[in-house]
C-alpha cells in the first residue's frame, strides 16, 4: 500500500517538475514602468496597488492613471506605450519568442489616451499587435500612433 502511495507521490513530483518550467514562463514579466507622474496604479488579481518606476508588469495587469498623471512602459519586445491622465489599459495577451520574434500582443484601452511605438513583435508579424477600444479594434502594422477613448456616448 505504502509503496503504491510513494510511487504515486513520486509520479506527482515528476509531473510537477515537468510542468514547472512552462508555469514559470507564464509568470515572466512582460514589461516595466519607466516614466511616471502623479497617481499611477496597477490592478493585479483584483488588488489595486500604487506603481513605481521599475515596477515589472505581467499579463492580465491593468494600469490606471489619475488626473494630471501619466505613465510610460517598455515591453519585452521593445514596444513602447504611454498613458495620459485618467486612463486605463489592460494587458490581455503577450507572447514573444526572443529567438524567432514571433508573438502576439493584445491590450485594451478602456478610457483615456494611449501612445504606442510598436516593437519587434510587429516588425516580425505585421498586425500581431492589437489594441481594443470600446468603439473599434486597432490592428498595428509597424508604426507610432496615438488613440483616445472619448467620453461622448
Amino acid at each position, binding site marked *: 500500500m505504502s509503496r503504491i502511495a510513494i510511487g504515486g507521490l513520486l509520479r506527482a513530483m515528476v509531473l510537477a517538475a515537468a510542468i514547472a518550467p512552462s508555469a514559470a514562463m507564464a509568470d515572466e514579466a512582460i514589461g516595466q514602468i519607466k516614466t511616471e507622474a502623479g497617481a499611477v496604479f496597477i490592478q493585479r488579481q483584483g488588488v489595486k496597488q500604487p506603481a513605481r*518606476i521599475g515596477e515589472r508588469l505581467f499579463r492580465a495587469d491593468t494600469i490606471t492613471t489619475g488626473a494630471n498623471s501619466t505613465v510610460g512602459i517598455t515591453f519585452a519586445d521593445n514596444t513602447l506605450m504611454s498613458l*495620459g491622465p485618467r486612463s486605463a489599459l489592460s494587458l490581455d495577451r503577450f507572447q514573444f519568442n526572443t529567438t524567432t520574434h514571433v508573438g502576439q500582443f493584445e491590450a485594451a484601452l478602456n478610457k483615456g489616451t494611449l501612445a504606442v*511605438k510598436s516593437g519587434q513583435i510587429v516588425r516580425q508579424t505585421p498586425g500581431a499587435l492589437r489594441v481594443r477600444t470600446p468603439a*473599434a479594434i*486597432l490592428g498595428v502594422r509597424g*508604426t507610432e500612433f496615438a*488613440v*483616445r477613448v472619448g467620453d461622448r456616448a
Partner: protein
Amino acid sequence: MTSTPTLWGAVAIAATLLVGCASRNLVVVLPESDGHVGAVMVRPGQNETVLDKAYLAAHPRSGAGRIKAFTISPARVNRIFGPTLAALPQAPKTYDLYFQNDSVELQEGSRASFEQVFADIAARPAAEIVITGFTDTVGSADDNDRLSLERAKAVSELFVQRGVPRESIVTAGRGSRELARPTGDNVAEPLNRRVVITVR
C-alpha cells in the same frame, strides 16, 4: 401636441451642442523619429479603415459603417496627446560587440561600445539590458540558435561582473537571423558573429 416635436428638436440641438464639448474617439498615425510611417487598421465592425500616412486620423464609432479618414494638424495632436506623448519612454538603443576568436575577449574596436553601454544604463530610469547573440550561416539552424544563446549568456557575465544586477539582464539567441552582412548558407563571416546589447 404640435409643440412636442419642436421641443424635442430643441432638446436634440442642445444635446448635440453639449456633446460637442465632450471628447470624441480618435486615432492618429504619427511619423516615427526616422521618418518611417507604418499603418493602423481601424475596425469598428466588419469595415476596415487604413490609416497609413503621418497625421492621418479617424473618429471610430461602434456600429458605424466605414469611417472616414482625415488629416489632423500636428498642433492639434499636441493639444490632445501632448502629456501622453511626453510620457513615452526613451527609445531603446543598441550596441554591436565583436569578440576575439569566438571567446568572451572583446575586440579592440568594441571596447568603446562596451563602455558606452554602462553610461547609457546610468542615464535611464530602471534600465534593462537585452543581450542577443548572433552567428554566421555555418552549421545547422538549431545549432546556431543554441550557440548564439550560449554566447549571450557568457557575455552577460561580463555585465554582472561590472555590477549590473542579474535581474536587469535578459539573454536571447537569434542564431543566423538578421545577418549584419547578408551571405548565402554555410559562409563563415566574422561580422555576423556578434552580440548586440540593447539598453532600454
